[in-house]
């Protein structure tokens, strides 16, 4: 059953949605509109004049091999962050779901990393892996491995993936745990009586029944990896070495604010905007169709 509230007249409803509309206008429509506007112009390097260039900024971007490379980097980065953070979270949630004693403490501890802002998470991991003073890099040194994410591209990528994954596991864990607890116990007991041992039950019953949660999280994690990891990358690698950890959103920043190529930066923002739009549409389509068994 759907619950609906009916209002008489228009004044109260209008009043109630105004704050939300204002926030959306100021923090979304205005910046998005500005980005679209600027993506069609090219300011001269001194900011003294701008010139309308049509889609030239986009043409230039699609021909730019650095931009293509950044796309590729983003794809690898976000799929690995999504895979690892969801995989680990699901594993922990399955353990927590089976746990009865001490479940509260376990869950609280797992939720803590979520309270740590991405930039701080970045600093934390940077300290652990610092090439001179880091605890983990020191241990790796003892094992004969010379860790240096400032020079080695793969290690740099690995480190930002680890840090981004770490700060995302809690969020995924909460959703997975809620999803697991929504599966009726009797269904799992029926499968046990039917002869399915734990992993069999997991893959044939639990995982399929969890698929709405999983799909939701895939979209949310891709969005996270695309945008919210900015802080992690900014504190740990600043997109380097070279361009090896420059994901799309970081490139918007470095081209626009460091490289001062505002036209290109605006065009990149517009492309990101389109990507988010597509993900959102996908999400809604799925929610409409598939969530209920």
């Amino acid at each position, binding site marked *: 059953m759907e619950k609906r509230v009916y209002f008489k007249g228009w004044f109260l409803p209008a009043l109630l949605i105004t704050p939300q509309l204002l926030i959306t206008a100021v923090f979304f429509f205005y910046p998005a509109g500005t980005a679209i506007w600027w993506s069609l112009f090219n300011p001269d390097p001194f900011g003294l004049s701008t010139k309308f260039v049509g889609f030239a900024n986009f043409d230039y971007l699609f021909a730019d091999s650095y931009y293509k490379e950044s796309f590729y980097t983003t794809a690898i980065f976000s799929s690995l962050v999504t895979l690892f953070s969801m995989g680990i979270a699901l594993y922990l949630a399955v353990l927590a779901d089976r746990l009865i004693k001490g479940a509260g403490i376990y869950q609280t501890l797992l939720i803590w990393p979520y309270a740590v802002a991405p930039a701080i998470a970045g600093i934390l991991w940077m300290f652990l892996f610092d090439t001179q003073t880091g605890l983990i890099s020191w241990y790796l040194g003892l094992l004969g491995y010379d860790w240096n994410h400032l020079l080695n591209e793969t290690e740099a990528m690995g480190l930002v993936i680890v840090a981004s994954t770490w700060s995302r596991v809690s969020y995924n864990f909460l959703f997975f745990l809620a999803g697991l607890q929504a599966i009726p116990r009797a269904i799992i007991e029926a499968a046990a009586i039917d002869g399915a*041992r734990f992993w069999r039950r997991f893959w044939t019953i639990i995982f399929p029944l969890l698929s709405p949660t999983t799909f939701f999280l895939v979209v949310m994690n891709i969005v996270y990896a695309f945008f919210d990891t900015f802080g992690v990358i900014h504190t740990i690698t600043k997109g380097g070495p070279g361009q090896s950890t420059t994901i799309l959103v970081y490139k918007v920043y470095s081209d626009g604010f460091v490289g001062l190529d505002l036209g290109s930066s605006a065009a990149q923002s517009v492309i990101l905007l389109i990507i988010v739009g597509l993900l959102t549409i996908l999400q809604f389509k799925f929610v409409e169709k598939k969530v209920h*068994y």
Partner: protein
Amino acid sequence: MSGLILKNVKKSFGKVKVIHGIDLEVEDGEFIVIVGPSGCGKSTLLRMIAGLENVTDGDILIDNLKVNDKEPMDRNIAMVFQNYALYPHMSVFNNMAYGLKIAGLPKSEIAERVRQGAIMLELDGLLDRKPRELSGGQKQRVAMGRAIVRQPVIFLFDEPLSNLDAKLRIQMRIEIKSLQQRLGTTSLFVTHDQIEAMTLADRMVVMNEGVAEQIGSPMDVFQKPETVFAAQFIGSPAMNIIKAVSERQSLKLVNGTSLKCLTQSNGDVLVGLRPEDLKPDKKGKIVMNVKLFEPIGASTILHGTLNNSDTKIVSVVQGLLSPKDRLSEMSFSISPEAIHLFSRDTGKRIVN
């Protein structure tokens, strides 16, 4: 040979004792109904047999093999749950085939067994449907189908009919009974409904607060209830229980009325009178102040109190009483053989 043996089985959840020691020997092919009020531990007992709960104390033997520490899948049982517990993402076919696939049967045999089960339960047209596309009665059938295709040693049913409407419940009850007779599989059926218990059981276990009050055939329990609880739980309307003192083959009821009876014992007792054993009789000694006439078709239920007391009693008389027969005071007699006596201390039956 015995299908299932329970030896002093006990269960506690933490400090709370839920099952206080139950002994039961189930013959091969027998249909046992565990009946009792909600919360008395029926499901817990069944779940221990299924292996879904640990046994705190005592032993459970299936086919003469102790199974206390065996996983549910190693006990060769099948269970039908109250809420059906079908796999929502699988078709009816796959729901029924799931256990067979895990057992590693060849595809052709799986298809054959599911087909036979489906025919038996009239599910043959529905094999491609998902559970959400089925009615309550059909879901119930699929749940039973899932149990029978595995050909287990024991069927366990946990209130499988209580989510169905009254008419369907009666129909499914009959189907379960005839199915069980055809397959001859030992069955344990949990219910809180005494009519279901009476109609289905070869023998029933009347449970109250984690104790088996009586184990016996429906007629045994009805005719010779071992305890006041069993006497009142089985039979509808429930047996009247009246305080009395017995002395040399006569009973003195709370209101002073004397009744002849067969007992030799003396002392404080509880007298049990089935409502349908009270026969209208102008000269009868049991006088009832009638408060309410409840016509139910073939008979009428009379609610009231024993005269000169506030003990509630109920009687059932044949036919619809015409207004001139509906007196505010009615007399009944009862034959001495129909009187049940229980100890007032222990609630146990006093044998004549």
